[in-house]
């Protein structure tokens, strides 16, 4: 009894676990239950039950309610689909003036909006793309195809790569200095001589449209949410879901609304990149000290000046993290949106992965990552830039950079012109190195992969088999063995014990949605893969983080490494693991582990760092040794922050698991991928995305609630 009084929470948790296991053991697996057939496959089978709701027929395999809930939400994907179709093709037809045919045409409103948006995006992308690579589309946008036929000279010529490279280097120099300038120059030269110029510039043109637009919208909406409680309340649930929604899932609905191509990719990227920007803007603005605002007001700022000159600059730190996120998401999407026909490096990467040409994939992946790092560093440098008022500068000093750029334009053009004579019979390498005509290391890598396979095949295979048979399969079976009721009880119980009735209700709602969707089994598989990844990531991340924390240098170095790794688009992680493990669950899981270890490590170091120095001294004076200090002082205090890291780790892991479907997994991701090529895919894709988002949100809710209480308890913040 004493124990019970001393540790009431512990016993409550034990009690919960006992109920959970009792439920698991008392409910048998129905004999007809088989995973692969799933529950709602939309194939007719006499064993299936059906019901009709809202005019939609849903077929499913009926089980005992305790084992699996019936897919009462099975109509939702079909309904979403139909609604989208209706919205696009029938809702609110209106008369619109058509420029080409010079007449009024009747079109549904949403379709017209989508088309207008689409052509605007396309124009922006092509404007940048053709400045870099040359082309006709931009001029066509102002004139017409007929006009171009009559005036064959009218074409944007595109810049020689030397000029673009010099331009980037000079811009980098202006923003930051020599170091970044050299890096920028090297990246550009590398891209060019390795024959990745064209796809890289295509990707770049996509990003130069998507990133600024996402930034502007995110900032604007963030400011609106800061100014008006109502806007914030309306935005918040969407933001929350979008944070944990896998980027894949947005593809399909966007496909329906905006069609295929770069413009759709930009819009999807904005959908994904804007929410974190909004959240971070809001966070930053909220954290501005009230006295600074008052100081701004007393300086006579009007509302606009207060926002642009006081609030936003003061909140710069958080807004910068937002910019960083936007760039990360953009590059991630640059690859993913290749699924819906965006051109560029991502397309090449996917193609190479599909053909199992690891060497090519590696080259494309490296290019994307390098450009990502470069843009990230440049945007940071831009935001940190200061003006100097006291330099009494000459005209040359003031316009040094512009002059240099002008000079490089002239030199570049001359070089390109000279190139036409040197490379008379081949390509003009001084203008543009054509795709796959540069140096390629693909063969080298492919041979390397072959060599690894030949040499280590036995070991890799053995490891692979062991992992799958001894660890993964049993774990998967365990997850699938859980009756739905037991899972619900466990989750809701955990919610209640952590956050009381409110939390319990929230997680109950989220879990119920997944349980009533047709994909409960798949969701379990997703969860199992994510769980395995998260456990391993945390084990590695917490250990590495703790070890690095012991030395200031190592910690700084590790944070830098995390920064760089985080900039890599998620797809890039699949390349090396496929090199080693081929197309198996192991590959996916290793990619998940590597990817999700980043936040785990980062948050561990940051958490340990945030322990106040005063406490260190106090601990040292009480005579603790290093180990004691770690276990008694630093861990308990850093733990809440580390748990936030766990939260991020879960989100990262889920994303990667879903992307892993590309290699072939049997979870929700597989269905999302399938939905891409399904004409009714929009509803399915979206619902699946929501399911994944909800898995993330369940953990998010539990962890955040716990962290909040713990922080209050410890008096941090």
């Amino acid at each position, binding site marked *: 009894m004493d124990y019970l009084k001393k540790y009431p929470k512990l016993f409550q948790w034990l009690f919960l676990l006992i109920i959970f296991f009792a439920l698991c053991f008392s409910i048998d697996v129905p004999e007809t239950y088989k995973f692969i057939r799933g529950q709602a496959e939309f194939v007719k089978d006499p064993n299936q039950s059906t019901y009709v709701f809202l005019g939609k027929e849903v077929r499913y395999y009926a089980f005992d309610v305790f084992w699996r809930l019936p897919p009462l939400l099975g109509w939702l994907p079909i309904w979403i689909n139909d609604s989208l179709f209706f919205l696009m093709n029938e809702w609110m037809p209106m008369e619109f003036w058509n420029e080409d045919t010079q007449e009024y045409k009747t079109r549904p409103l949403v379709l017209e909006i989508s088309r207008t948006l689409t052509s605007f995006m396309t124009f922006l992308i092509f404007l940048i793309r053709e400045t870099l690579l040359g082309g006709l589309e931009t001029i066509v946008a102002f004139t017409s195809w007929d006009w171009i036929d009559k005036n064959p000279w009218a074409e944007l010529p595109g810049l020689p790569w030397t000029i673009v490279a010099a331009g980037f280097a000079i811009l980098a120099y202006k923003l930051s200095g020599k170091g970044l300038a050299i890096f920028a120059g090297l990246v550009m030269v590398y891209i060019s001589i390795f024959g990745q110029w064209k796809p890289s510039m295509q990707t770049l043109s996509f990003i130069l449209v998507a990133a600024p637009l996402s930034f502007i919208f995110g900032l604007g909406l963030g400011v609106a949410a800061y100014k008006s409680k109502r806007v914030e309340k309306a935005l918040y649930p969407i933001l929350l879901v979008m944070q944990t929604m896998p980027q894949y899932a947005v593809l399909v609905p966007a496909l329906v609304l905006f069609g295929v191509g770069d413009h759709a990719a930009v819009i999807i990227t904005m959908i994904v990149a804007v929410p974190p920007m909004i959240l971070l803007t809001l966070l930053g603005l909220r954290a501005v000290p009230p*006295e*600074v605002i*008052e*100081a701004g*007001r*007393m*300086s*006579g700022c009007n509302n606009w000046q207060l926002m642009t000159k006081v609030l936003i600059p003061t909140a710069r730190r958080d807004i910068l993290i937002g910019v960083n996120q936007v760039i990360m998401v953009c590059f991630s999407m640059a690859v993913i949106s290749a699924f819906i026909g965006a051109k560029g490096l991502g397309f090449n990467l996917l193609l190479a992965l599909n053909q199992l040409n690891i060497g090519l994939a590696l080259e494309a992946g490296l290019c994307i990552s390098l450009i990502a790092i470069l843009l990230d560093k440049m945007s940071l440098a831009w935001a940190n830039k*200061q003006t100097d008022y006291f330099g009494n500068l000459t005209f040359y000093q003031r316009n040094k950079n512009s002059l240099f750029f002008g000079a490089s334009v002239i030199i570049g053009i001359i070089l390109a012109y000279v190139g036409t004579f040197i490379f008379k019979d081949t390509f003009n390498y001084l203008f543009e190195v054509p795709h796959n005509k540069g140096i390629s290391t693909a063969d080298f890598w492919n041979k390397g992969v072959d060599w690894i396979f030949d040499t280590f095949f036995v070991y890799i295979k053995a490891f692979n088999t062991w992992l799958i048979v001894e660890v993964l399969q049993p774990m998967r079976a365990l997850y699938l063995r859980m009756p739905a009721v037991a899972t619900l009880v466990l989750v809701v119980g955990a919610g209640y014990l952590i956050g009381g009735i409110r939390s319990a209700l929230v997680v109950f709602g989220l879990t119920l949605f997944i349980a009533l969707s047709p994909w409960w089994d798949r969701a379990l598989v997703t969860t199992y893969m994510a769980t395995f990844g998260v456990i391993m990531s945390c084990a590695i991340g917490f250990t590495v983080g703790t070890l690095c924390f012991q030395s200031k240098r190592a910690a700084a170095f590790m944070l830098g490494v995390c920064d760089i790794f985080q900039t890599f688009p998620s797809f890039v992680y699949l390349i090396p693991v496929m090199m080693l493990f081929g197309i198996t669950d192991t590959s996916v899981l290793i990619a998940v582990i590597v990817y999700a270890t980043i936040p785990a490590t980062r948050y561990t170091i940051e958490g340990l760092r945030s322990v106040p120095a005063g406490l260190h001294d106090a601990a040292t004076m009480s005579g603790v040794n290093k180990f004691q200090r770690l276990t008694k002082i630093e861990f308990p205090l850093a733990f809440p922050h580390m748990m936030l890291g766990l939260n991020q780790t879960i989100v990262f892991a889920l994303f990667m698991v879903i992307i892993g479907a590309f290699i072939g997994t049997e979870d929700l991701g597989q269905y999302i991928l399938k939905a891409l090529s399904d004409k009714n895919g929009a509803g399915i894709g979206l619902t699946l995305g929501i399911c994944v988002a909800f898995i993330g949100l369940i953990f998010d809710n539990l962890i955040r609630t716990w962290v909040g209480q713990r922080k209050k308890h410890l008096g941090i913040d």
Partner: protein
Amino acid sequence: MSEPVIKCENVYKIFGANAEKMLQESNGNVDAKTFQDNGCIVGVNNASFEVSKGEMLVVMGLSGSGKSTLLRCISRLTDATGGKIFIEGQDLLKLNNKELIDLRRNKMGMVFQSFALLPHKTVVENIAFPLQIKGIKTEDSISKAMDMVKLVGLDGRENYFPRELSGGQQQRVGIARSLAVEPDIWFLDEPFSALDPLIRKEMQDEFLRLQEKLQKTIMFITHDFDEALKLADRIAIMKDGIIEQLDTPAKIVLNPATEYVRKFTEEVPREKVLLIEDVMDTSITEDVGDLKVSKYEVIENVAEKILSQEKSVAVTDENNKVIGSINPTKIINTVFGGRKNSN
């Protein structure tokens, strides 16, 4: 007497959802307790006073006494719930947004306890900020700001960022910024409270030097009674939103109006606060020695001289005309005598 620069009439500030309604129903008889029971918090309770040109009014009170709220009502960073505030005869609460911004750009400057500097701007940019907000050209505003940098003694550090400065230096920047537009009215909200005692004393002296030169109309907020005594022309002591007493330092020390005020005055070294005129006899006796002291002298500075005399000492006014006398025993009584009946 000319028109007061700041004039408050029955100013109330009450926080809470239905503050205005409750204030109307109370007919100006606000009881903090009843308001609190109804979910309202009384910040300022019936404040009426005037500040005339070139005067420094120090508002003194402990934390939560409503002194900062009062200041924010007068600078209209927050809107008063009731009452009237006049700035140079203009009804502050009737100004529209544009007029208010105009007023702040040209007439008001404010210094904050936590300095409230803009972290992304250098010292000189911070100081030039109000000027640039006004729309003054960058070059002009920077050169004007450089003058302010010199005024507060930060030359050579104009390109530093706030984070690179000590607390005292940061507050110098805050002071310079508030003075950049050459305001007539100067609000200081506990400007020296976040500083070390030594720096604080230095800044107080610096502040007095500046004020001597600039002659602004000042409202100065502090929770430090010594600081109030040192700086003020008049002191308003606040408690629970109510101004308990508003008077010159000497009169507050000599005649504390309430028990609360008396507690503050107990420990005060009188010789540092009181002037000769506060304790002299206005009747002119024949029996005075050769020594003459000005009625404006602080007792501390002349006590030794007076005590070395056998007879009473003549007190003179600014025209060197004898207007009274002071007996050495009076000095001793004032400094060492019983606190309550020293008068």
